């Protein structure tokens, strides 16, 4: 069991860094959101694995939290993406730095 958990955690870490690299490297905001989703799920996967290791429900509860939070985040983020596209006619985050925030 422990060995599987170890493998799952490595997978989670790999997924997390893939997501992070995606956020850092991609300039298109839609792909950045996708990468963030990957990072969320990597974290969720780590929680689930940890919950299975100690046979506790906490990990799965945390995963449900993460999924619901990701859903809320995506709804806000997509609204922002739409606004961005609507006003600036671009999806490039580096070009859209006039907000300075």
């Amino acid at each position: 069991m422990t060995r599987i958990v170890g493998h799952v955690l490595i997978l989670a870490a790999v997924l997390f860094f893939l997501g992070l690299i995606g956020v850092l490297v991609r300039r298109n905001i839609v792909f950045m959101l996708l990468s963030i989703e990957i990072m969320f799920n990597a974290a969720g996967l780590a929680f689930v694995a940890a919950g299975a290791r100690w046979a506790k429900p906490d990990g799965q509860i945390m995963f449900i939290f993460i999924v619901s939070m990701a859903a809320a985040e995506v709804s806000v983020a997509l609204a922002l993406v739409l606004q961005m596209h609507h006003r600036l006619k671009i999806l490039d985050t580096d070009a859209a730095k006039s907000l300075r925030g």
Partner: protein
Amino acid sequence: MLELLWIIPALPFAGSLFLALLGRKLPRRAIACLGAGSVGICALLTGLVAISFIGHTSSHSFTYTQTLWSWLDVAGFGPSVSLHLDALSLVMILVITLVSFLIHLYSTEFMIGDADYSRFFAQMNLFVGSMLTLVLADNFLLLYLGWEGVGLCSYLLIGFWYGEPQNGYAARKAFIVTRVGDTALAIALFIIFTHLGTLRIGEVMLAARDTWPAGSPIATVTALLLLAGAVGKSAQLPLQTWLPDAMAGPTPVSALIHAATMVTAGVYLIARTNVLFMLSPAALTAVAVIGAATLVVAGFSGLVQHDIKRVLAYSTISQIGYMFLALGVGAWSAAIFHFMTHAFFKALLFLGAGCVIAATDGEHDMFKMGGLRKQMPLVFWTFLIGACSLSAVPLITAGFYSKDLIIWKAYCSARGSVWLWAAAIFGSLLTSMYTFRMVLLTFFGPLRKNATKRPGWPMSLPLVVLAVLSIAGGLVDLPKNFGGGSALTKFLTRDLPSFVTAPGRAVHQGMFGVFAACVSLGGILLIELLMRSRMYEKISESPRAKALHSFWFSGWGFDRLYDLVLVSPYAMLARINRDDVIDYFYTGLSRLSRQGWRGLCATENGRVRSFVLGIALGAAIIIGLAVFL
């Protein structure tokens, strides 16, 4: 009449205030009436006060104290503004008001062409008020107020013609050099207050006599600090350098402040605090040695000056040296006597020099004058009387009686010595020589510059009165040998300790007197011979004499020494510290925070990806710390 004492210092202050506020709108005649009038009434009142004071002679140690108001009262420190009249201060205020009035009268004509007529009289009146406060003060704090007041007026009046930069320089120099002494005086007052708990002069003297044993270090330190204050104000070694430069002021200022009154404040201070000096024989010896050294050093410098006013300035330093010598050997009343006669004849000489300078269109160089004897007979004769009095021509002049007394007492005093006597007698020779060199150069010889104007009555009258006083002033203290009763000495001995003669020395006074007289007359003859036979020029042309000449001319190189030791290092430090070394820390702090701000600003560039990088790195660092620590 004594209740009117407060009016004496109040009148000049009132005159000064009035002139300062309204002077510009008044016509010159009104300014002259106000300026000279306030001091004139002052002199009259002083006369009345003196008559009623001397009327109280029935009680031997009569003094009069008038408390005007309480100045402040904090935690046992309660100096009041009160005036104290005793024999010493009475003699001082009599001389001060009389000479001040004559000089104010003279100034009404002398300064008539000046644009700042009212400013001149406002400052002169302020000076007289401060000087009277100094002398009449009942406590040291009020004395210090007057002391600083006269210093301020001296500064203002030396720099009266402030359009010339070197006049401003001379004024600053006088102010800063005397400040050295004033600081010492302030420290002395702190010591007195912390140890004796009072600043009232009478109480301090009693308390010091009771609590400080004779010769104790605390008494010596206090007396030496007081001496330093006196040395600064009275332009004695080693703080004498400001006085020759102070001649940049108008001539009446030199006569009033830098000859007759302010520079003798040091003599008054030492005489007033005589108990402290009696407790410390070392300090008293220092007074005598400083006086003796100063009178010789300044005498040599006076011998080679070209500027008529600088001769008189060095002569003033030298004569105050005599007063210090007298104080140092315990001849207290002789010092005050010499102060009195010196005020008369030196004011006379300055005023005469002022007439000469005014008549020759502002010429100060004696070598460009000459032969003015026929052109200005009144000035010549009164100047000659002043010069005779300064040179102590025997029997007929006041200067003889006062200076002879000092020379004699320098020898016969229990604190005196042959060396002090020798310095005094040598100084007397120098005095005659530089005085008559000045007279010969200015009034005799070929006419080099025509006198363009004659003094009117406001300038002539003071000359005549002061000439009379320079001769008759000696009568108040005529010694027994000449059929007098030493009236002034007796009068002053009420407040000042009496003179102690050394056993076995108090003989042959007559012979010493004759010798001193011969020396002063010999000096006059010697300089006459030297000047007439052209020996003077011959001597002064040899290279060695030239070097000596320039050494004496520059006042024994004291200015250069102070420049080298004090002024230039200070200026260098000031240059280094131009931006304030301690400030570097604070400017560094502000620069650091500005750099930090700039760095943080750079991170806020609006790129989402760099924010993410920042968050990721921050998280990595924190997790790293959590894991590895």
